[in-house]
């Protein structure tokens, strides 16, 4: 095995791959944020809590209904997405004509409520969720032992991201979404029920977060605070990528996961901060973010 800057290539490739796994979560979450932001002009601070709710939904489905991982992968996002629909209808819709900062504050408050409730009921030391049997074990890639489940996370997240991209950029329904992002008033005057689309879009973005939560459940413990720390990193990812494009959100998510992984090899002390430092640099060079549109 050769070495790069004194680091065995083994460790390097291993960390790169791990970075990609983390990137999967960043990408799914920032994608959801981008989809929501596009239609609602709201930064969904509840996103972290909804990610957590996804994980809890998987856990509770298993505990109380005996429903395993595979069905949960579909059911949990639908359930949590439905709560998103309710949130949009009850709360966000009433703020549409106000400054988007109110949306941020509202979703922040909701995040506190949700996290508090879950802490209240489930404590905080985390609840276990097993890797599904069919994905147990792993394979030795030579440079590292890659658990099958983690490989699955990369594949699934990539697939969901690309499917979402395709759906938005290449389909009829997606053209409605893009058009409504640009000029909702006119799209509505073309006979399309934009408010319903907004509601469903929010539900969809929330469902993406919940899906990420289900995917995370077997890797991390299911715990009420799992979302709140992650969400701030994802915000930084979003600022770096800019809210310009769906692809931007996906690419930035994966790329920053990898960068973070590399930092863990070369300069572990900075692994928490590297994304924020990149954010500062990107802001200096390209205030609109890497994929953002100015103006």
């Amino acid at each position, binding site marked *: 095995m050769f070495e790069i800057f004194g680091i*065995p290539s*083994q*460790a390097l490739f*291993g*960390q790169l791959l*791990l970075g990609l*796994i*983390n990137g999967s979560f960043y990408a799914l979450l920032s994608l959801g944020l981008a989809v929501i932001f596009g239609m609602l002009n709201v930064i969904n601070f509840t996103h972290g809590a909804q990610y957590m709710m996804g994980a809890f939904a998987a856990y509770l489905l298993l505990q109380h209904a005996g429903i395993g991982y595979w069905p949960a992968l579909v059911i949990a996002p639908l359930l949590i997405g439905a709560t998103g629909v309710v949130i949009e209808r009850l709360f966000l819709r009433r703020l549409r004509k106000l400054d988007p900062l109110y949306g941020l504050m509202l979703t922040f408050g909701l995040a506190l409520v949700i996290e508090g409730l879950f*802490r*209240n009921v489930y*404590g*905080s*030391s*985390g*609840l*276990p969720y*097993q*890797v599904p049997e069919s994905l147990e*074990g*792993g394979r030795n890639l030579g440079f*590292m*032992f890659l*658990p099958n*489940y*983690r490989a699955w996370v990369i594949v699934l997240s990539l697939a969901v991201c690309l499917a979402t991209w395709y759906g938005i950029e290449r389909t009829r329904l997606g053209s409605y979404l893009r058009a409504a992002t640009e000029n909702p008033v006119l799209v509505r005057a073309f006979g399309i029920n934009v408010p319903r689309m907004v509601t469903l879009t929010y539900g969809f973005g929330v469902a993406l977060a919940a899906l990420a939560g289900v995917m995370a459940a077997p*890797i*991390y*413990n299911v*715990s009420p*605070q*799992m979302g709140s*720390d*992650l969400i701030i990193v994802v915000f930084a990812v979003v600022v770096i990528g800019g809210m310009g494009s769906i692809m931007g959100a996906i690419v930035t998510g994966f790329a920053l996961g990898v960068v973070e*992984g590399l930092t*863990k*090899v070369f300069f*572990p*002390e900075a*692994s*928490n901060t590297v994304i924020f430092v990149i954010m500062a640099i990107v802001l200096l060079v390209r205030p609109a973010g890497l994929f953002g549109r100015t103006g």
Partner: protein
Amino acid sequence: MKFAATLAFAVAALFGTATAQAQDNVVKIGVLTDMSSLYADIGGPGSVAAAKLAVEDFNPAAHGMKVEVVSADHQNKPDIGASIARQWFDVDHVDVIVDVPTSSVALAVSEVAREKNKAFLVSGAASSDLTGPKCSPNTIHWTYDTWMLANGTGKAVVKTGGDTWFFLTSDYAFGHALERDTAAVVKANGGKVLGHALHPINTSDFSSFLLQAQASKAKIIGLANAGGDTINAIKQGAEFGITKGGQHFAGLLVFISDVNALGLNTAQGLVLTSTWYWDMTDANRAFTKRWQVSLPGKFPTMVQAGVYSSVIHYLKAVAALKSAEDGRAVVAKMKEIPTDDPLFGKGVVRADGRKIHNAYLFEVKKPEESKYPGDDFKLRATIPADEAFRPLKDGGCPLVGG
């Protein structure tokens, strides 16, 4: 003016009651713990329940005393802990604070207790500094500490063949101390430390640290961390085939609540040191049964048992002095009379404030070995009380002469 009136009303309504309470002869025990966060299952409501059981068993009426238990959540933040402690002592006439998981909070509360001359009985916090350089005539450290954990687990593991170590260390004072102490024990017993990886507190993804541990080929991966971090590290270690690859985890601070969170399937084989286990004696089982009335389905940790034990002993000392006013005097009394309670048996409190009792080395059972809920540990060794804790002279506590 409406605004002024509102403000005045609000102020009066909210705070007016605070100072209204008169001084009386009630002994007030404040359980200051983590009710909502990382260590809520280690201490938390379970500690409050334990304290209440202790009061019940002490039977204050028989001693002509009145005892009240209050509780608050310090959220693992030293600032919140210190300000609650201050307010309890200043305003609410609390005489003693018990539990306080999280070393940083315990150190802060210890300062306040000393300043206000009240008693402080630590059960939840780990730092051996509490009876070392930062010892206080008002503080007793009851259940366990970092030195004891390092000594118990470290020595036992090396002696059973785990002679090469790699540490996953929580990157703050508690983790550093735990690693340092354990590394010293490992080396003293002829083992070798191959390396370490520092991880931030509350890390959700340990995979990259585990990869380093794996690459080190050390037999033992020592977890110098606590709570959720320990849980996550072990869980993800299983996923990366660490245990199947022949490496073993040594959890330096593992509680039964952590084991339950992990599930036996993942936690099996884990070696840990504890000073108390619910299923060891009939007295412990009886206590557990009563305790479970408040927390059904859970099992008390050593911290919660320590709260019980420390409260019993405290009340005995207060009864002997007939006053809880002077915290220093009560603590001195507690050091003077020997301890004896159903959970920890007979013991002593040392001059530096260290409570001395046995420690036990446990191994987590395999799922098939566990016959009923909570049947998690099997005993591997008993560390006698006089070996379990740091010798008095090594602590550097200014209270100890010479």
